[in-house]
């Protein structure tokens, strides 16, 4: 009876382990989706209200989501000794997400998104956002594909491992 209970625990733990390990793929999707939404808001504010970047960053820093902290850092940088929006963006992304579930190349890709923002007229901002949206779509598509492929694989691996251990014990 005790053995059966231990086996059930092992299977449950391996299931939990698989779920937690594969959560990183969900986490990546959440982060990239959040930055996509925030850039959509930024684009709307720039195109229709002509709000300045400091004002937009201040508003976005108050919203929910993993990227809000990046905008808080940017606000502090723009008000203080920070030099350019692109540098502050890159620094902010690397500080917040270098230890997150994002892969290194994904962090690098996101860090480069701030380049060109605020530097030209509206036409140049439109081109910037077109480039940003293309890059974000690529990152999202990669993350979705990875998620659908690897999540199930890791769940199966962990659960199979747990079952195998249980069988051996029994």
């Amino acid at each position, binding site marked *: 009876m005790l053995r059966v209970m231990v086996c059930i625990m092992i299977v449950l733990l391996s299931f939990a382990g698989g779920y937690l390990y594969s959560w990183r793929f969900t986490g990546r999707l959440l982060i990239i989706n959040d930055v996509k939404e925030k850039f959509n808001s930024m684009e709307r504010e720039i195109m229709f209200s002509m709000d300045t*970047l400091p004002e937009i960053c201040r508003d976005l820093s108050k919203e929910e989501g993993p990227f809000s902290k990046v905008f808080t850092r940017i606000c502090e940088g723009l008000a203080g000794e920070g030099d350019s929006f692109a540098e502050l963006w890159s620094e902010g992304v690397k500080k917040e997400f270098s230890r997150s579930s994002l892969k290194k190349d994904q962090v690098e890709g996101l860090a480069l998104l701030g380049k060109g923002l605020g530097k030209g007229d509206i036409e140049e901002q439109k081109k910037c956002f077109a480039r940003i949206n293309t890059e974000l779509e690529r990152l999202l598509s990669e993350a979705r594909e990875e998620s659908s492929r690897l999540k199930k694989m890791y769940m199966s691996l962990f659960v199979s491992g747990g079952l195998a251990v249980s069988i051996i014990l029994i």
Partner: protein
Amino acid sequence: MEKEDSFEMIFRRFPEEYRHCIDILTDEEKEKLEEVRVKAEGYLVFAGGFGEKASDIKVSQRGLTLIVEKLLDHSVYAHMEELCSGYITVEGGHRIGICGRAVMDNGSIKHIKEFSSINIRKGREVIGCSRSIQRFLLDEKDDFLNTLVISPPKCGKTTLLRDIVRTLSEKGKRVSVVDERSELCAVYKGVPQYDVGRRTDVLDGCKKSKGMSLMIRSMSPELICTDEIGSEEDVAVIKEAVSSGVGVLTSIHGMSLEELRTSKIGQLIEEKVFERYLFLSAAPKIGTVTEVLDKYGRRIDA
């Protein structure tokens, strides 16, 4: 914020390596400071009542670009109209002229890039400079008399207009200002940076002809003020204002009434639209009122 403090605040927005260049000036020199010129691959030059002084730090091309971007709140797109006019107005009413490579589109300036130099001019107002001529501007019933301020450039027309507006507004008149080039009121984020009075409404950055009609219809002013008339459109809209019962206070470049009679606004003089002509000179100092004439051209300030 005091004008002096707001002028020094501009330098706090510079990149770190240039932020303290202004410290080469003594406190007395800072008070006399009138403008600062910054050139790409050049030095910051401070000019004013003390002469000129240059910093010992060279400003690189990238450095100047960063300075301009910071002055534009890292948002060049939000300041395109001002940028294409060649200047921006910042808090405190200070004006920053910006030079670079103009990108043209159908004969108009679409953008200025590759900034090459900037000129930061300290805004100044002279409260009370119209005190000596206030008695000529209202009739016995306290109604405003249409007034034209005349002088060559750089004699203080705008400063005088501003003080007249402030005084009349404080006396209870509803004043509308159409500030086409943001020189009279220096509006920054919706707030005039000069004291133009509690009852003054400002339409900033709008062409005089369109702005004056709009203000007459929307703000029911007792008098309307604008700077530097000279075109036929200006003549038409001034006549519209006068026929609506709104007083007109404005200025023009010129030396004499005879010269103006043959100009584009000659019709306004012939029809005696203006009841007061104020002539300014820079001698012995800027803002000196040399004579006041009535609508017939007779001197009344003796």
